[in-house]
């Protein structure tokens, strides 16, 4: 699927709004400043996914996007393992980074992902004027690429060779925590989203 510059810009703006809400919620939870990168939108051939995600073990909280546009695809909150451990340490007031990922981390990261993604989707849905809801969270602590591959297999259902990646990085310098929000929309629903965004820009049509 080819996206023109205007479409990419619109999607970036949508991502920007969503991610800034997610960043605010993360900032409230951690009680510190969160920096945010300008969202990137990229259309990637599935054989090239390994250039974007690697083998590093990460915590990934995955949601199916439900609501009016359905099935809209998946949205993922991706936190590298060390960042995830720092994240729970910050919340629980502990400092031990040299440890394995435990159940407490898993449930903390699930909850953080849940709150961030809910804010992200709320904001984008409000912009688009539709209802978008996250499914209950699914969590995987594993190689990032392996988990994304699994999700891509679900999203593409065979006849799509490209996926649209939509990513924003949220960073807390105080605690050196990195996280990425990645949205993997289904192609037909991305078209719907683009129509809605277009209507916002040209309301008279």
């Amino acid at each position, binding site marked *: 699927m080819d996206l023109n510059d205007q479409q990419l810009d619109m999607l970036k703006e949508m991502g920007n709004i969503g991610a800034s809400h997610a960043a605010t919620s993360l900032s409230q939870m951690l009680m510190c400043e969160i920096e945010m990168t300008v969202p990137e939108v990229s259309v990637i051939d599935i054989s090239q996914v390994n250039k974007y995600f690697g083998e590093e073990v990460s915590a990934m909280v995955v949601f199916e996007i439900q609501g009016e546009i359905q099935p809209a695809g998946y949205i993922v909150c991706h936190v590298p393992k060390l960042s995830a451990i720092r994240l729970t340490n910050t919340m629980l007031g502990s400092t031990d980074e040299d440890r394995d990922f435990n159940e407490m981390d898993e449930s903390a990261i699930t909850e953080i992902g849940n709150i961030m993604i809910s804010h992200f989707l709320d904001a984008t849905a409000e912009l688009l004027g539709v209802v978008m809801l996250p499914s209950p969270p699914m969590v995987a602590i594993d*190689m990032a690429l392996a988990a994304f591959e699994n999700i891509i297999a679900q999203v593409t259902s065979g006849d799509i060779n490209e996926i649209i990646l939509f990513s924003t990085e949220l960073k807390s310098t105080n605690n050196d925590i990195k996280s990425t929000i990645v949205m993997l929309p289904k192609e037909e629903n991305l078209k719907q989203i683009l129509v809605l965004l277009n209507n916002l820009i040209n309301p008279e049509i």
Partner: protein
Amino acid sequence: MDNQNADHSKGVNVGIGEYKTGISKISSIGLGSCVAFILYDRKLKTGGLVHVMLPDSNGKTERPGKFADTAVPLLICEMEKRGSSRRNLSAHLVGGASMFQQFKGNLDIGNRNICALKEYLNELRIPIESEDTGGTSGRTVYFFPEDEGKIAVRRADGKCYEL
């Protein structure tokens, strides 16, 4: 050249739906529900790897490496082009994990990939010599055709082993 410490050296990496054949190291990183389907020719010491994503092509001919039903004949044909005889080939399967408990039953693509590959291999009478499949953990696989077809697997939890 490939050496024992190969886990740190980059070989040819095979992405989703792609395939490679030859004698030098072939790798496929971060296999989740996808399966690395490997054929090894013990006589010529050559091999091939295809990175399968879904069990059924539903008649699509584009990107045969992506689907189990088309990947099996594809890789056999590619091996035969390299001079392999079918009776010298053995199959090895790595991957097919189910990382999300919520993707169950029909949604468990990993398991369906494995079943489909086994079925087609059985039909064509290619023996499956080893496999490291299922479970909940992602894998990276390294395949060394010229080194007696050695297959090394690294799991997300850091465990490394040979098949």
